[in-house]
C-alpha cells in the first residue's frame, strides 16, 4: 500500500496539510480517518475571509482527533488538528507552538501553505510530513521543496483524483521526492508512515 520509499526514516512528529479549491471535500476523506493519538496535524485551506471558524467547527464532530482553530502560543500537541484562521498566516515556532501573522498574502493567499510548510520545516526537520491536496494555485510547491531540504517528506493527492490538479502537480514538478497518493489511500498512507518503525 505504501511505497517502500515512504517507509519511516525519522519518526513522524507532525503533519502539515495544504489545499485550495476542492480541499474541504478532500479533507473529509482524510482527517476523519486519522486515529485519536495521531501526531499533530496543521492545516491551511484557502477560504474566503468571510468564512471564519467554520472549518474547525465543520470537522470537529467528524474526527477522532481534537479539531481546533490555531491560536498564538498554543503548544502543538499529539492528537490535535489545527486549522489556520481565515485571513491570518499560520506559522510554527522553533519551540513548536502556533504563531499567527497578518503579513501580506503569499501566492495571493493568507493563510499561505508555503508560509506554514517553511516554518514547520525549521521546527520539525526530518520528522515532518507535508501533504498537498487539490487546488488551483502553486502555493505549497516552495514549501514542499523546503520540507525536502530539511529531510522531511511530502505526499500529494494523485492529480487524477483531485478536483483541480494544479497544486499537487506543481509540487511533483518542483520536488522529485514527492509521492502521489490517491485521495482514498491518503489517510492510510499517513498512518503507515507514522506506524513504521
Amino acid at each position, binding site marked *: 500500500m505504501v511505497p517502500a520509499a515512504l517507509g519511516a526514516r525519522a519518526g513522524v512528529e507532525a503533519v502539515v496539510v495544504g489545499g485550495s479549491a476542492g480541499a474541504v471535500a478532500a479533507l473529509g476523506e482524510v482527517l476523519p480517518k486519522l486515529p485519536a493519538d495521531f501526531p499533530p496535524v496543521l492545516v491551511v485551506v484557502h477560504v474566503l475571509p468571510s468564512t471564519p471558524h467554520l472549518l474547525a467547527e465543520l470537522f470537529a464532530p467528524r474526527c477522532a482527533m481534537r479539531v481546533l482553530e490555531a491560536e498564538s502560543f498554543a503548544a502543538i500537541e499529539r492528537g490535535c488538528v489545527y486549522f489556520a484562521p481565515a485571513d491570518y498566516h499560520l506559522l510554527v515556532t522553533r519551540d513548536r507552538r502556533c504563531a*499567527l501573522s497578518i*503579513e501580506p498574502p503569499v501566492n495571493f493567499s493568507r493563510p499561505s501553505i508555503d508560509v506554514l510548510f517553511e516554518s514547520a520545516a525549521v521546527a520539525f526537520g526530518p520528522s515532518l510530513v507535508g501533504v498537498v491536496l487539490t487546488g488551483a494555485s502553486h502555493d505549497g510547491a516552495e514549501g514542499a521543496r523546503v520540507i525536502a531540504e530539511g529531510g522531511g517528506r511530502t505526499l500529494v493527492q494523485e492529480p487524477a483524483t483531485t478536483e483541480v490538479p494544479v497544486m499537487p502537480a506543481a509540487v511533483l514538478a518542483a520536488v522529485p521526492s514527492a509521492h502521489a497518493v490517491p485521495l482514498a489511500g491518503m489517510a492510510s498512507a499517513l498512518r503507515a508512515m507514522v506506524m513504521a518503525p
Partner: protein
Amino acid sequence: MDDDIELRRLIDTIYSRYHYDFRRYSSASVRRRAVQGMIALGCKTFSGLEELVVQDPAAFTQLLQYLTVQVSDLFRDPGYFRAFRERVVPVLRTYPSIKLWVAGCANGEEVYSFAVLLLEEGLLDRTMIYATDINPSALQAAEAGIYLLDRMRAFTANHQASGGTCSLSSYYTANYGSAVFDRTLRKNVVFSDHSLATDAVFSEVQVVSCRNVLIYFERELQDRAVGLFHDALSLRGFLGLGAKETLRFSRHEMGFDAFDAEERWYRRH
C-alpha cells in the same frame, strides 16, 4: 536549521548597534521577515546581512521595513470598532477629557479609524491620541495620512459595518489616486517613536488599542507590553486587542476583566 545561531547573532547585533530589540519576538515570524530582508538586500546568509547592516545604517533602515509588518486597514475588523462605539464610547462620554494610546499604529490606519469614530461621536475635541510605533517611516506615513485611493472602497465598507454615521469620503479629499485625510482629524494626535520592548510608560490614558502587535511577541515580551498597558491605564480604563489576541496566556490576565470578550475589549481593575 543550522543558521539559527547566525540569525540570533544578527538580532543581537541589531540590538547592540541600533537598539531595536527583536530578541524576544516570535522566532518563526522573525526568521521569515529576516529571510525576506536578506533577499531584498542581496545577501546570501544571515552573517552576510549582519556584516552589511553593521557597516551601513541605510541598509539597516531598509531591513527594518522587512522586520516590521505594516499591514493594516481602516476599521479593520469592523466589529471591534462597533463594540467601541456602542459600549466604550458611552462610558468615555462621562469623562471631561480622554487619552487614547494606539500602540503599534503602523501607517496610521487605526489612528484615523478612531479619529473618524470619535469625531462622529462628538468626542474628538476632548480626546488626545498618542500614536506610537518603532518604525520611523511608518510614523511619517501615519502623520501624512495619505492612502491609495484604491483602498477606500474596502475602508468605506468597513466604516459602514462599524456603525459609521457619515460617509467616509467626507473625511478625505481625493487627489491623483490618493486619499488625503483631513488634517483636523489629527489635530490632537501625537505621533511618536516608542517601543513596547524597551521603553516605559509615558502618560496615563483611559484607552489603549494595541492590535496585531502582540502576536509577533514571545510570551515574556507580551507580558512586558501588557504590563505597560496596565500601568498606563487609569482604573477601569479600556484595553482593546487584535481579533486573534487574548490575555488568556498573560501574566496580567488577573489585572483585567473581559468587557467584550468576542471583540477583545478588556477593562483594567
